[in-house]
Structure formats: structure tokens, C-alpha cells
């Protein structure tokens, strides 16, 4: 009820201002002044973008249409325009790039829903009242802060951790492989096949459980955003549902889920961007390997731009599809 009243107030205030013809000029100038201050506020970004960022982007695009010809012994280089040659080479000549691209995008399709589902689930859990909620919250957000950058690299090289996790037996000196499979998918698959659950879903869930560490690590920000969204749903709605006799299951699907669909959109796009630009991404790794391999610099920038365009297309498509299902409580903005 209070939110309705709040919504109504601006309209009431606006009406007389707009109605008074005498004040119109002054309002326009105020708007202009506000627009000017708006520019002042975003000025740091504009300057930074024009002076630092734009030249880098342009240079990278120029590189992708050229060949680098090394100069004389003194170093330096000259550029030779070759048109779409680099792009053709990246897409049709290089044997691995197209394949890595396809498998990388497939991985993205697997990761994004897994992270969204998991972070939503955890956010719902952490939003409930329970023993030690504060402690669990603190623990779950540790990876957001600590497991980034260099820690990710250390974790990738961590053979000690693997050998410690390995519980298969003392004499197993190899120290890998067995513990990686947290759940042996064969057992589970057989179990669920008897229950007539689709094998695709079973495989998906098994994969998800096997990659749980990775997923937990990468869903911290998403969890925070979902938690914030859950907190902002008015408790009065839940109360009225309870009075009407709705179960928690029904409340979740009829109230919670629609109310946080805007955040599913935001998180979906954030997750796509995040996993796409992550250093651990297979396509990114392939591109930086190409970059560091001899004269692959121009080729790698062509690859990067192809990849970039594809991901922009995916972001736009996903954004379009999800926003068709998004429910907005307030139609304003």
C-alpha cells in the first residue's frame, strides 16, 4: 500500500508545474542544467573512453585487417592491409579455432544455466531463517573476494590439493582422475533411468555436481544479486499468501520467481559476459596462445573480434528471449 502511495506522489506534484505556462521556460532551463550536470558526472568515463579506450579498440581492429611485417634490425614494424584475410584464415584455414569456438560456446550453454540455477537456489536458502545463517553467508562469499586472479592460477596448478583430495587409496600414486569424479555418473544414470527421468537431465545434473567447485566459485556475484532481489520483495505478499493457504512451493513459483525475473535477466547476461571473458575460458586461452605463438598477433585479434561478435549476438538473443518473460512490478522506467 505504501509503495502505491509513493508512486502516486510524483504525479500529483508534477501536475501543477506542467500546467503553469509561466514556468515553462524556467523548467526547460532547469532540465538543461540537469542535463549538463549529468554530463559532468559521466565526464571521467567520456574522457577516459575517448583518450585511452577508443584508440586501443581502433588499433586492435586495424591490426585484425593487416599483416605485421617486421622492420629492419632496429625493431619496429610496418602494417600491410590484407582485408578479410585474417578472418578467413581464422575461420576456415586454422584447423582448431572453429572447433574450439563451437565447444567453448557449448560449454557456455552448459555453464550459464547451471550457475543461474545454483545461485538462485543458494540465495533462496540463504534468505531463509536458519541456524548459523550469518556464518554460511560469510563462507559462501569467500570465493568472490579471494578466489580470483592469481588464486585461480594457483588453483589450476595445484597438484598438491588434488593428491590430498584423493581418497581412493594410499597406494594410488598418480593422484588424480578418481577423485575428480565426485559422482560416478554410471551409478546415478542407472538409478534415474529406472525412474524414467530423461537421460539428458540426468547427465546435466551429474555434470553439475562434478563441477560443483567451479560453479560455486563463479556464482558469488550472482548469489549476491539474487539475495538483494529476494530481500526487496515485500513480506506482506508472503503473509497474504500464507493466509490464503499457499504452500511454500506454490509461493516460490507464483510470487518469488516472477518477482525476481528481472534479476535472472541481469544475472544471465552478467554470467555470459563473465564466463566469456574469464581467463579460464577455452576460447580465450586458445586466443592468447595464438597471440603468443610467433606471428599470430594479427590472427589472434581477428579471432578475438569474431568471438566478440558471436558473444554480443548471444547476449542480445538471450536478453531478448528472457526479457519477453520478465515481470515488472512497476511499469515505470
Amino acid at each position, binding site marked *: 500500500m505504501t509503495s502505491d502511495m509513493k508512486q502516486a506522489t510524483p504525479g500529483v506534484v508534477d501536475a501543477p508545474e506542467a500546467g503553469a505556462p509561466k514556468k515553462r521556460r524556467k523548467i526547460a532551463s532547469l532540465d538543461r542544467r*540537469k542535463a549538463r*550536470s*549529468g*554530463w*559532468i*558526472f*559521466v565526464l*571521467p*568515463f*567520456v574522457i*577516459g*573512453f575517448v*583518450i*585511452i*579506450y577508443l584508440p*586501443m*579498440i581502433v588499433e*586492435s581492429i586495424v591490426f585484425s585487417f593487416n599483416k605485421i611485417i617486421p622492420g629492419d634490425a632496429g625493431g619496429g614494424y610496418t602494417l600491410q592491409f590484407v582485408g578479410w584475410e585474417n578472418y578467413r584464415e581464422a575461420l576456415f584455414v586454422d584447423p582448431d579455432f572453429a572447433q574450439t569456438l563451437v565447444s567453448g560456446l557449448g560449454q557456455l550453454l552448459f555453464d550459464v544455466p547451471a550457475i543461474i540455477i545454483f545461485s538462485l537456489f543458494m540465495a533462496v*536458502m540463504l534468505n531463509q531463517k*536458519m541456524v548459523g545463517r550469518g556464518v554460511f*553467508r560469510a563462507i*559462501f*562469499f*569467500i570465493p568472490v*573476494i*579471494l578466489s*580470483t*586472479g*592469481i588464486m585461480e592460477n*594457483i588453483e589450476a596448478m*595445484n*597438484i*598438491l*590439493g588434488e593428491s*590430498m*583430495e584423493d581418497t581412493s587409496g594410499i*597406494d594410488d*600414486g598418480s593422484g588424480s582422475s578418481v577423485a575428480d569424479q565426485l559422482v560416478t555418473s554410471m551409478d546415478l544414470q542407472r538409478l534415474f533411468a529406472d525412474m524414467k527421468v530423461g537421460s539428458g537431465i540426468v547427465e546435466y545434473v551429474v555434470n553439475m555436481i562434478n563441477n*560443483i*567447485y567451479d560453479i*560455486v566459485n563463479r556464482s558469488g556475484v550472482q548469489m*549476491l*544479486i539474487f*539475495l*538483494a532481489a529476494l*530481500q526487496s520483495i515485500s513480506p506482506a505478499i508472503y503473509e497474504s499468501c500464507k493466509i490464503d493457504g499457499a504452500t511454500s512451493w506454490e509461493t516460490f513459483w507464483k510470487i518469488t520467481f516472477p*518477482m*525476481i525475473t528481472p*534479476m535472472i535477466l541481469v544475472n544471465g547476461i552478467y554470467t555470459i*559476459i563473465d564466463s*566469456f*571473458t574469464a581467463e579460464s575460458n577455452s576460447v*580465450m586461452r586458445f586466443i*592468447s596462445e595464438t*597471440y603468443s605463438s610467433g606471428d599470430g598477433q594479427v590472427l589472434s*585479434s581477428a579471432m*578475438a573480434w569474431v568471438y566478440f561478435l558471436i558473444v554480443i549476438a548471444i*547476449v542480445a538473443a538471450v536478453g531478448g528471449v528472457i526479457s519477453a518473460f520478465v515481470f515488472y*512490478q512497476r511499469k515505470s*522506467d
Partner: protein
Amino acid sequence: MDAQQAPKKPMVRRESKNKIRVDFERTPLKERLKAKYLSVYFLGKVVWWIFRLVLMIGISYIVLFPFISKIAGSVMSPDDFVDVTVRLIPKNFSLDIYRAIIEELNYWSALRNTFTLSLICGVLQTFICALIGYGFAKFKFRGRGILFMLVLLTMIVPHQTLQLSMFMEFRYFDILGIVRLLKGGGIELFGHNIKDILPATAGFFESLNILPDKIQLFEYEEIVRGVAREAWWLEMDVSEDGINLINTYFPLMMLSLGGLAFKNGLYIFLLRQFFRGIPDELEESAYIDGSGTMRTFYRIILPLSIPMLITVFLFAFCWQWTDDFYTNLFFVTTDTNMLVKLVGTIPPSLRMDYAGQDLYYSAIRNTCGLMIIFPLVILYAFCQRFLVQGIEQSGLAN
């Protein structure tokens, strides 16, 4: 409504209360307990409670295990890595790895440098992103939509793509040819230098050479491996092609000032959402009282948003702290010692050839990682409550 019903209410309540009490007293205790604890509702609750607790503890274990295993490995002695009976609990406790890293890898100077850099970047990024976010949230101006798309663009373009350009940009840093002009290099337009086209002006341009070849500021004495030497906090080469900003804090500071550094798009987005949740009436009343937009921003809006600012600062500080991409890109020599550069160097006194070598070196790397994040753990312990609080207030759902 209340006034009319108030006199009747107590009577109704007393009546029903009595009835319930009579019913309650007539039922024997056993039946009562049965009704309460053997219901599907109660059992469901208990099962859910246990399931939830087990799940939470399980996932906490997954999150914490890497840290536990690293700590365990860091206090083992070399012998434990070949002993197959040792898993998590060391047999021969030893702090050699910590000692070696602190003494031989200049841990304290690296810590100091990283702290300075992260603090500068964290504060700058928080403030600049708040400015930009506020501009996007509260003002309508032409081109706002396009500008915001550009912010998202900086998030989407992976920085690895711009690696080479970024290095070149700051290796030969020059804004609009000003450095070239002040170094006597003349003005370059479309690949041709005015100095070469009009030789008459050459003398004039060369007389403009007022910048020194080397900029050195803030001398101090540094002790590296027991030898004292003079060093400068700031040391840059200047040539006609531009200033060499590599190995200084400037590249990252400039990126921070432009809201272009690591993940700044996310901060701008979060802060924009947060500021949108603040009612406009607050600022309008300030404007009516004669306060300008800037003044309103730092006197009214910023104090209101402290939890959110702490959240963003926490992200900015910690992600800058552990970031290895920019640090390795902009700090190429060993002169400026950074924490993330310690990883991968094995302290000389720990180098040895034996069967457990790979595991031992892995443990050294892990210990290095632990020592890098240790200050962050302390910071997190103090700030974690702001993390949820700040985000909660952001009103993201609107």
C-alpha cells in the same frame, strides 16, 4: 473502523479463547504431543531442516577445502610430501616455507607496494564509479543510452584482446601529441610532421624542448637483499615518442580515473542501480534549498550510500590485489615488487631435488597464495557484513 469494533472485540476473543482452552484441557497429553509432532507438517519441517543444514555444511566444505588443504600443505616439512601416509595432517610440523618467503622473496616490500596500489585504485575506482553511476542514474541527457552501452562494451571486450595496444599506449604515453611537442618533436598530423614539411618552423619547435629525459621524484633509500641503494618512488623515461609509464602506478590510476579498470563496468552498473533506488524527492528538496548537483552528491547522496560504497571498495580493492593480468602487464621489471609476482619463484633455500619435488613446489606456490590473500581475509572478516547489507539496500529488484 477500529473505533467501532473496539468495544466488541474483547468479548469475542474471550469466548473463543475459553473454548480452545476447554478443548485443550480435555485432550490427554499423549494425544496432544501426537498431534503436534507426528503430523506431516512437522516431519516435513524437520526433514527440510536437516537436509538444509547438511547441504549448507557440504557446500561450505567445498568452498573451504582448498584453503584447508593449502594451510595443511604450508606447514609440512619436505619429508611429508614423500610419506604416503600423510594426507592433510602433517607429521613433521615446519614453518620453513613461510620463513623463506618472507626473508628471501622480499615479502614486506611486495606487501607494501601492493597495498599502496590497491588502496589508490580501490579509492579512485569507488569514487569515480559512484560519480559515473550517479550521472547515469539521476540525470536525463542526450546520449545517455549510447554512453551506457559503451560502459557495457568495456565490460564485454575481454582485456586480453587489448593487451598489446594497452601496453603500447602506456609504454609511449602521449595525449594528443603534447609530450611530443614539449620534447621538441613538433606536431604530427596524419603521419606527416609539420617540422619536416615547413623547415622554417623547426627551430621554433626544437626550442620548445622543455621536458627532461628522465623524471625522478621522491627519493628514498631501499634495502634489497641487505644492500642499501637509492631509489625513486617515481621514475619515468621521456622521449619524443612519449613518456614511459611502465613500472609506475600511473597506468592503473589512469584506467581507474576513467572507470575503465578491471570490472569497473560492474561497479558502475551496481551503483547506478543503487542510486536509482534513492527517491528523487531527496535531491529535489536539496536543490530547492539552493544546493548544487555536486554539493548534493557529496553532502547528501554519498553519506547515504556508505554500505554500498564499502561493498564496491571491497570488490575493487580485493580484485586489484589478486589481479595478475594488469600487474604483470604494467610491472615488467623486478624493481617494483608486487605480491602476485612472488608466485612461481621458489625461494633459493627451498630448492631441492627429490621425489616429492613437484608436490613440494606446489605447496610453496600455495603458501605464497595464502600469504597473498592473508591481509584480504582480515579485511573480509571486518567488511563482510557490509557486503550483504550494501547489496540489500541497492534495491536491485526495482
